[in-house]
């Protein structure tokens, strides 16, 4: 800590920062454009100019850019000095010369950093009297709208897209005042993180195309703090609604999880919430067809069924909250509660939880991953199974080469200078997967093999580290690779091991743990990250230990007539034939779900479940972090949280009172004491700031009286929210709420997402009151976790048969987001991938139609070559319509169809 003087006032500050960060962290208003807390300083825009003085006697000073000015003891600067003021205002005047001033029709209007900064500088009178330069805009795909004329050339877009996210197809073209940010030619932006351009761009060049379809100003949105439900990482989001539909998703800053960013599946995959396939009312099957019935009637009838049936079974969901799963298990009894996943998947997740609970090594958070300096990935195509982890890994890969810049005493925040030193270098980064992956481009070495062979490599690496296990019979090549990986991991300050469940291989998960254990025993401080399939896979596995096969294979007794299925399409999880048989055994199939699906068609009753948009709940991410999401709005239909429906069903004469959310959690932790922490992840429903609730709507929310004027002219009373400290109104506490219940960012003068600066203790650091979420598994000193000893035998390919493995797609492999229109445009066509040599031998060429047998049926799909699958292995896209219900891996035959 050193002392600095800003406008003659002394402050004690951190000397590892620059003066812009320091001013912002102190809560001072200093305009900027090109600087971004996650991207660092480059000094392009010249907007954060301040006057720097030699000492207290220097009255004239010198204009400097605060973002390039290191904090040093006794530095004196002025934000308020006239020269600095005039320069900043003049700079905005200059960069606005070609701006179209189209705020009224611009999607960014009202949340535009350029608007905010322009007002902040005081520039208001335009002297430029010449023609403006104009540009042609580009089609950039279904996610992003492009309006280059609004560009103020801050260079943040390319710095994020290329330097930070590893994108290749967005660049800066031309020079002088004709600089153009776009693609070489119009086309879909390929990078998986392109949506962040919407938030990174300080004005309306890159805007959200899905929002544009049903555009609403920021101030007219009802917002809620939410958690992305589209993979297991649990990125924090802001979900926004108007007129009953979800309009967009923004990143909600969480310094421990996703920081400032989201992947495109998380950002644009929300549209299914507004789908025509949404189940909006309770319905009942009568005479073979489902038709809407009154919800009270539905509840009454289902209650009667439950009362009569002695034994009912419940199927829970890794997409549903802990609360919903818990109440279902309460309703049916824990012994009759089954997780809605296959036992293969379930057991792997249990293994992961067991390793995390064992506490031998640290399970780092998503943001902590950025701090590791050597990486070994076993079996995960991270870009497609946990996209945001890639963004963290890309930063981690630069840590080792960054040491050179540190040696040159270049401050970490000086991004341009650091990059000049680091160039394209990456640190030790090893990837062992079943096929080529996008992240391979930053890998030191890749290894493509059958899952068992990947595990064998893991065992070999462990053996090299500390002879645990003592003997591994690997071939020379594997030995050499294992040696170089173990050398790199041992040489690193902080080695990181990444693995997961995606290849359905137990040995991979075990061997990853072994490596981390061995590093730990060698005195290193390794990190171990497991990727699991769903947003609440970990949560569900902590409250249920039975899986779909357990109930499918159990003969149905006569009194066992009712199944309640929570937020699960069984046909996605199990094959059609067995699922038909299973469902036929039940007289009553009660389904709680959001979108009409195959399971719904077999239902006797359907209750409309809330998605993240209409439900409150708690989910546990892959790190073991429990996080809360809140419903955005109360829809004008029957949709509500599944746990609320289940409570309706649970209510009988003996327990007449409705429990609110806190009370449900209370009873949950009574049954599952190890989940105690979820009680404290967010303020209770009776929390108030003073006497006030936290409004979900900004204070400028408009049209509240008018929006229902077609039905009644008096202003209706806003709905109550008995379950949280949030209100469905614009009235309430206007300051900064607790971080877990912050629905949006706004501060006087800061209307854009950059208002986040005001919510952080220091810019880029933790939120006031700490980042939300509670970790359930921390390292335990003297953990008694033991090494796994199940080194599998090497894989041997078969003649005439192939082993099919799942191939994951960020767009398509997740069931719900795949039903979002924008995302649907990005889903590739289904295919069968195979090895080039195999194809050559079998006379198969790219695009040939192949016939394949799975789930008891023949399917025809085109061949796709060259993703470097090992010989004897084929790949099928996971979770596509064509591949629903497949259990990977499986052996199969292929037939090439001629001229089809």
């Amino acid at each position: 800590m050193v002392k600095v003087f800003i406008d003659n006032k002394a402050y004690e500050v951190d000397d590892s920062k620059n003066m812009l960060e320091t001013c912002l962290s102190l809560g001072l208003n200093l305009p900027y454009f090109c600087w971004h807390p996650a991207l660092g300083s480059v000094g392009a825009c010249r907007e954060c100019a301040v006057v720097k003085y030699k000492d207290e006697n220097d009255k004239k000073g010198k204009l400097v850019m605060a973002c390039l000015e290191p904090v040093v003891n006794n530095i004196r600067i002025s934000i308020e000095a006239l020269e600095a003021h005039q320069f900043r205002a003049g700079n905005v005047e200059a960069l606005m010369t070609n701006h179209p001033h189209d705020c009224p029709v611009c999607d960014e209007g009202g949340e535009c950093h350029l608007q905010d900064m322009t007002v902040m500088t005081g520039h208001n009178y335009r002297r430029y009297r010449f023609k403006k330069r104009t540009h042609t805009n580009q089609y950039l795909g279904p996610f992003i709208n492009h309006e280059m004329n609004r560009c103020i050339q801050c260079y943040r877009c390319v710095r994020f897209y290329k330097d930070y996210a590893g994108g290749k197809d967005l660049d800066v073209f031309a020079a002088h005042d004709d600089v153009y940010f776009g693609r070489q030619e119009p086309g879909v932006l390929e990078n998986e993180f392109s949506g962040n351009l919407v938030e990174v761009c300080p004005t309306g060049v890159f805007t959200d195309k899905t929002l544009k379809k049903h555009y609403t100003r920021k101030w007219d949105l009802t917002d809620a703090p939410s958690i992305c439900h589209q993979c297991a990482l649990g990125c924090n989001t802001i979900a926004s609604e108007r007129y009953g539909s979800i309009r967009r998703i923004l990143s909600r800053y969480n310094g421990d999880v996703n920081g400032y960013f989201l992947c495109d599946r998380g950002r644009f995959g929300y549209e299914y919430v507004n789908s025509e396939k949404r189940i909006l009312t309770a319905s009942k099957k009568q005479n073979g067809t489902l038709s809407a019935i009154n919800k009270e009637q539905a509840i009454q009838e289902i209650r009667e069924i439950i009362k009569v049936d002695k034994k009912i079974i419940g199927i829970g969901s890794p997409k549903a909250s802990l609360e919903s799963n818990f109440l279902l298990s309460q309703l049916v009894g824990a012994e009759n509660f089954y997780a809605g996943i296959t036992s293969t998947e379930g057991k792997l997740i249990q293994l992961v939880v067991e390793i995390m609970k064992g506490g031998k090594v640290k399970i780092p958070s998503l943001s902590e991953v950025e701090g590791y300096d050597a990486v070994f990935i076993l079996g995960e195509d991270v870009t497609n199974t946990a996209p945001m982890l890639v963004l963290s890994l890309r930063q981690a890969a630069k840590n080792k080469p960054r040491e050179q810049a540190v040696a040159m005493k270049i401050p970490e925040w000086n991004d341009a200078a650091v990059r000049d030193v680091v160039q394209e270098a990456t640190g030790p980064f090893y990837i062992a997967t079943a096929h080529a992956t996008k992240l391979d481009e930053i890998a030191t070495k890749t290894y493509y093999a059958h899952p068992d062979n990947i595990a064998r490599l893991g065992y070999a690496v462990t053996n090299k580290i500390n002879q645990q296990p003592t003997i591994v019979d690997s071939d020379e090549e594997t030995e050499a690779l294992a040696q170089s990986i173990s050398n790199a991991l041992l040489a690193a300050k902080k080695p990181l091991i990444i693995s997961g469940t995606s290849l359905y291989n137990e040995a991979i998960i075990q061997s990853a743990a072994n490596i981390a254990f061995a590093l730990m025993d060698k005195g290193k401080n390794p990190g171990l990250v497991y990727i699991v399939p769903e947003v609440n896979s970990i949560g569900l596995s902590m409250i249920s230990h039975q899986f779909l096969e357990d109930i499918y294979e159990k003969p149905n007794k006569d009194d066992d007539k009712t199944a309640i299925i929570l937020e699960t399409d069984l046909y996605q999880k199990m094959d059609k034939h067995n699922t038909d048989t299973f469902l036929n055994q039940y007289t009553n199939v009660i389904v709680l779900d959001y979108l009409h699906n195959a399971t719904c068609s077999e239902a006797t009753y359907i209750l409309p479940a809330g998605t993240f948009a209409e439900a409150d709940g708690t989910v546990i991410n892959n790190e073991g972090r429990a996080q809360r999401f809140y419903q955005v709005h109360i829809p004008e239909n029957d949709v509500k949280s599944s746990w609320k429906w289940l409570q309706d069903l649970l209510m009988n004469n003996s327990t007449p009172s409705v429990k609110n959310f806190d009370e449900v959690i209370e009873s949950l932790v009574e049954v599952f004491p190890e989940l105690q922490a979820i009680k404290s992840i967010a303020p209770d429903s009776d929390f108030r700031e003073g006497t006030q609730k936290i409004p979900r709507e900004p204070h400028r929310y408009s049209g509240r009286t008018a929006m229902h004027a077609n039905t009644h002219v008096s202003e209706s009373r806003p709905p109550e929210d008995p379950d949280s400290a949030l209100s469905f109104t614009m009235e309430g506490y206007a300051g900064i709420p607790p971080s877990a219940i912050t629905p949006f960012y706004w501060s006087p003068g800061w209307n854009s997402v950059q208002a986040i600066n005001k919510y952080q203790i220091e810019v880029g650091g933790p939120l006031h009151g700490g980042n939300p979420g509670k970790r359930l598994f921390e390292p335990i000193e003297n953990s008694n976790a033991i090494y796994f000893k199940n080194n599998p035998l090497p894989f041997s390919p078969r003649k005439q048969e192939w082993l099919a493995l799942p191939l994951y797609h960020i767009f398509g492999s997740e069931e719900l987001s795949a039903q979002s229109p924008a995302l649907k445009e990005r889903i590739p066509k289904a295919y069968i991938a195979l090895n080039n040599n195999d194809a050559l031998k079998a006379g198969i060429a790219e695009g040939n139609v192949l016939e394949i047998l799975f789930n008891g049926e023949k399917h025809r799909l085109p061949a796709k070559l060259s993703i470097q699958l090992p010989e004897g292995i084929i790949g099928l896209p996971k979770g596509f319509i064509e591949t629903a219900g497949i259990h990977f891996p499986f052996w199969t035959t292929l037939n090439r169809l001629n001229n089809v």
Partner: protein
Amino acid sequence: MEKPLTEHIKNDGTSLSLMEYENAGGYQALRKALKLSPEEIQKIVKDSGLKGRGGAGFSTGSKWGLVPMGKDVPTPKYFIANADEMEPGSFKDRLLLEGNPHQLIEGIIIGAYAIQARFSYVFLRWAYHQASKVITQAIQQAYEAGYLGENILGTDFHLDMSMHISVGRYICGEETALLNALEGKRANPRSKPPFPVVSGLFGKPTVVNNVETLSNVPHIISKGADWFKKLSITDEGGTKLYGASGRVKKPGLWELPLGTSLREILEVHAGYMQNGYNFKGVLPGGGSTDFLTTIHLDVPMDYASVSKIGSRLGTGTIIVLDDKTCPVGMVRNLEHFFAQESCGWCTPCREGLPWTAKLLDALESGNGIMEDLNILASHVHYMAPGKTFCALAPGAMEPLESALKYFKEDFEKHVHEHKCPWN
């Protein structure tokens, strides 16, 4: 009067061959240098007072002295000759490149040895086609003669050299933009600090020196620092290539003692003004220097003296303005050039220069208003040194600022007469 840089350059437009160069004492300096330690060479060059002839005037020896030396420093180091002569009105390096390529190459090798560089480049202006042939051939000859490659002249010093032809942007002459261009990136200048001597090409220690600067090096090594110091009239050391263009009787380029007066260059060497034209002013060192007028004619043309009267020696190539040429039009042309050559990185340069050019266009076409003069003056302030990312825009403001000072009436006439008085 000694003319070390140009005395052997032939008048027939052909370049000095390797043999001719060697016969004139060429590569003897290199032989001498390789027997000295790198630090000794740095000291000799520093003691000579040699300053960067590209325009910045920074001590060459001091620049070399900032390169990390010893075993545990980042390698490979690089040594680059900046032959991207793009300054409006400048053509001095061209004479050296085309006329005596080995003098430059020898200078590079000695410089590279002095910082222990492993690779060197000649970064050449795109339009210098003759020079590209000459330099390519000379590099080849130097390799064949053992002056380049491994174990140069039997020592354990290795140096490779390549020529890189720029794609042709003014900004590539800025040393850090040059590095980006050489790396295949956009030619935007880099953030300083760190300076290239610490983190340069591919992030490694790198020295970038101007062609004229480097051409002096073999002579300094051969004849010593004191000899070099005594070449100049004032105390800055050495000779300087001075040029003159515009409506003078004998436009040309002359190697003269550093510190020769502006009057002597114009009157004695350039033959003063053509008949029918009167002297109005000069840009003393290329397009990005401040105007000097009649009152400044006796200034010694060295770094300190020109700086003292509010301009810069720059490249030492003088552009003469006569009374039949509109000063507003001249500045307009310059600002058009600079606006076009802005890389587009920082706001003041990217937006301020085109605005400046448009204001001058308006004045020239009779559409100017008095407010325009205020905006021009405010732009001079807005693009002053320190406010922009590199020196391009501040340089561009130098002719404008001084024109507004010395030719204010001419600007006002454009407004009042609603036309250019010279048209």
